[in-house]
């Protein structure tokens, strides 16, 4: 352990006591003094190459860069003297020597660190009369736009790629005036987190390609929301103008995504507006035809009067909608709502299907076992945390498919029984804080619960589950899943696979955004699709009703750890889309069933009354670890893992419709989507 004792220092003659492991800059921040900086970033290693953070330290003959300077007992730091100001002005003048004066056409304008700091430390006119340098733009792929003449060589992007994304592909070539940031041979960056270099870049050298020349920051309306394209629930901020979303950026949440988000949520927003279902459709003469709400609701009412419906819940559905569906479906009997369309295995409580280790604790582990999962494409944020653990010295083992990740893994084999491999047992016995991550699809086709119970037994045996922690994790990539399971949108017999439902006597299927409806097993059913994107599911349905996207209504999503968070509305639904609960209320009235809530708030209130745990936003729902199963004979059945997501850029209905994501598949994964005509 590092010694964290306090030492006394003075900052601007104010005395304070701080941790002695901090740097001068961090101490200044604690003291409330703002230090200008370009290269320093608290999530990255310290480089000390921009020199903007100069401060005066007593007894030091020259100004010192505060980000690289460790603290010492009795140190006296001055951050606001004439000398400091003059020093920073000098640095700024040098930084601006080769920086072009193109702020009016720069995408960073208005939110640019260099622009802001030049307001304080810049001169009003240049004293430099020599030629400015110009640098060729580099290719970094379909997401990151480069205007390299603007680069000030802070190397934040290089450090991010190496230390956070784990893809050492960026670097600085040459030296002095010839220094250039580039990827190796100008290849595209292959990371799922590459878009974050755009936020990191303190100037306009790396900007977003899809957002290029779209808007100025002061025109945008900010909406705080949640990433629903994987189950981690990264906090995002959606910037929109009028009825159009123009970009998505991360919000800092130290417990989940820190400051990063995946490229999928950052760039797939053009898919929000492609292939939208904007009006109700009804099948007449074998073809879907444009209809209206009156007609479709009437047809559906009549249909429901004389049928046994089954409701499927999709992967992008919020908890309130799920609750309304459950409420509505109760009128038709029991066991008729299902969200586990991939046959996800669940057992008696929340701990049997969620990620039990808090996401910010993954990095503390010293041994991680990945079973039948590829965190790199399923949940890039969790993959980053595993990479962090790896960098702290953790060993990573892999069971299932031999996948290549951006860190070194030891491959044990395809069978779950490899957990009892002697070499591995030796390692796990030595480990202080082991973690098992099971892709939930690995257990999908489980024939009996014995394997699950064996896993629990095994976890107790090796201290994965103790009184105060539970390190047996189930990783499911879908955002809606935990929330839907929490409110009980699944059939009573938990262990039964989804397909069993089909043996029962249903004749109508209502799909709430689930593409499973296109499955041939529903061919004999009357199919109704509630959704926002027209894909296979809508194409095969007999009735299609438009509903809003997660950005067009408020909704709660529970992330993989069991943390309820709210996605907020940023503009009105496209076309004549109506929220699901409104449609269901109307149907209830027609069928004279009870559906009390009159407004969304009333619906939510009722939900909170029934499920008070959902009310605490941002808090992980607590659930006691179940009684240890004492299984005498630990037996691991062989499971066949299903690949739930094969292609990171096209995992759901929205990203499948995004042009940007299509470009990523072509240029980064190098898979042509269509044969190009010669």
């Amino acid at each position, binding site marked *: 352990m590092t010694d964290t004792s306090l030492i006394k220092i003075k900052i601007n003659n104010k005395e304070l006591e701080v941790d002695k492991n901090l740097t001068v800059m961090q101490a200044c921040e604690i003291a409330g003094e703002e230090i200008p900086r370009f290269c320093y970033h608290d999530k990255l290693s310290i480089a000390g190459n921009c020199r903007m953070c100069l401060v005066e330290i007593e007894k030091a003959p020259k100004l010192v860069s505060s980000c690289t300077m460790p603290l010492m007992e009795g140190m006296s730091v001055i951050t606001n003297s004439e000398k400091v100001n003059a020093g920073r002005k000098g640095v700024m003048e040098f930084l601006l020597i080769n920086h072009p004066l193109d702020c009016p056409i720069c995408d960073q304008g208005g939110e640019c660190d260099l622009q802001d700091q030049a307001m304080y430390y810049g001169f009003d006119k240049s004293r430099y009369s020599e030629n400015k340098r110009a640098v060729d733009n580099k290719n970094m792929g379909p997401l990151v736009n480069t205007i390299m003449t603007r680069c000030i060589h802070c190397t934040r992007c290089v450090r991010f790629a*190496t230390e956070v994304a784990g893809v*050492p*592909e*960026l*670097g600085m070539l040459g030296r002095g005036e*010839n220094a250039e940031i580039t990827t190796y041979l100008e290849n595209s960056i292959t990371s799922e987190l590459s878009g974050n270099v755009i936020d990191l870049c303190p100037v306009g050298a790396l900007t977003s390609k899809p957002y290029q020349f779209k808007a100025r920051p002061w025109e945008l309306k900010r909406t705080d929301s949640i990433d629903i394209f994987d189950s981690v629930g990264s906090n995002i901020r959606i910037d929109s103008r009028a009825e159009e979303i123009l970009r998505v950026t991360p919000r800092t949440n130290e417990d989940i995504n820190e400051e990063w988000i995946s490229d999928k949520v950052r760039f797939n927003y053009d898919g929000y507006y492609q292939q939208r279902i904007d009006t109700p459709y009804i099948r007449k003469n074998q073809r879907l035809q444009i209809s209206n709400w009156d007609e479709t609701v009437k047809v559906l009412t009549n249909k429901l009067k004389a049928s046994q419906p089954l409701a499927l819940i999709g992967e992008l559905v919020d908890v309130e909608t799920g609750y309304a569906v459950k409420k509505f479906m109760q009128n038709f009997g029991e066991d008729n709502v299902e969200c586990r369309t991939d046959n996800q295995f669940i057992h008696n409580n929340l701990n049997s299907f969620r990620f039990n280790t808090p996401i910010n604790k993954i990095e503390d582990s010293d041994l991680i076992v990945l079973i039948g999962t590829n965190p790199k494409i399923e949940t890039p944020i969790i993959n980053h945390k595993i990479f962090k653990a790896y960098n702290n010295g953790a060993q990573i083992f892999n069971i299932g498919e031999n996948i290549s990740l951006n860190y070194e893994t030891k491959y044990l084999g395809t069978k779950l029984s490899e957990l009892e491999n002697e070499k591995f047992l030796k390692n796990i016995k030595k480990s202080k804080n082991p973690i098992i991550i099971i892709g939930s699809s690995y257990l999908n086709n489980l024939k009996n619960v014995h394997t699950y119970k064996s896993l629990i037994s095994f976890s107790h045996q090796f201290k994965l589950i103790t009184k105060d922690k539970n390190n047996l994790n189930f990783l499911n990539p879908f955002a809606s899943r935990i929330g839907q399971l929490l409110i009980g949108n699944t059939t009573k017999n938990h262990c039964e696979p989804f397909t069993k439902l089909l043996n029962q006597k249903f004749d109508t299927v209502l799909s709430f955004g689930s593409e499973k409806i296109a499955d041939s097993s529903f061919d004999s059913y009357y199919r109704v699709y509630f959704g926002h994107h027209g894909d296979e599911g809508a194409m095969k349905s007999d009735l299609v009703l438009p509903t809003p996207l997660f950005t067009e209504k408020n909704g709660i999503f529970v992330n993989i750890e069991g943390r309820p968070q709210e996605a907020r509305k940023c503009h009105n639904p496209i076309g004549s889309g109506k929220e699901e609960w409104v449609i269901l209320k109307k149907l209830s009235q027609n069928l004279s069933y009870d559906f009390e809530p009159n407004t969304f708030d009333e619906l939510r209130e009722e939900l909170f009354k029934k499920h008070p745990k959902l009310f605490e936003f941002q808090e992980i729902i607590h659930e006691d670890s179940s009684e240890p199963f004492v299984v005498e004979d630990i037996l691991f059945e062989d499971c066949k893992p299903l690949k739930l997501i094969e292609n990171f850029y096209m995992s759901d209905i929205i990203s499948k419709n995004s042009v940007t994501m299509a470009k990523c598949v072509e240029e980064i994964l190098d898979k042509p989507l269509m044969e190009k005509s010669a």
Partner: protein
Amino acid sequence: MSNHPGLSNTFSSTGEKFVWSKDSLNSIKMIISRYPKDRHQSAVMPLLYLAQEQNNNWISIECIETIAETLNMPKIRVTEVASFYSMYNTRPVGKNLVQVCRTSPCWLRGSNKITNTICKETKCQINETSGDNLFTVVEVECLGACSNGPMIQINNDFFEDLDEENTKIIIDNIKNGKPNKIGSQKGRRSSENA
């Protein structure tokens, strides 16, 4: 940007995989053993030099890839080092790389004249390679033989105390395949008083 072959950021490809020769492999073993086990990447500079020696005095993309593979490090890290130092040539150079010192002491003693003579004799401009692929002429900063200036370096050898005449002789000798006297051309030993 300077067109010096060692200061360019663009690398070229030969299209053929670069394979270490037997001698190189022996040297690599020895070089890597100098560094602690988990610090073997420090050997990147001697390995670049070795690759350059084996690859006709320049570093190709394939050299970089082979070095990255040998030292188990990212290719971009090798590229960074190779592009930083001017002694690693990033494109093919002639059989004899003539480096003329142009820093103040040599320049005061007439390094311009030496440069002009060399350009005239080799029939190539600064930073260019002669048609017969025998010479590449570059101007460099101080090579550390100031008291014997003006001086040039041809491949690994210094030629000091130059004037237009003895420079011409050196170039002619190379052209005719005759050996040259290395070091001072005026009979000085080391840098004793002239």
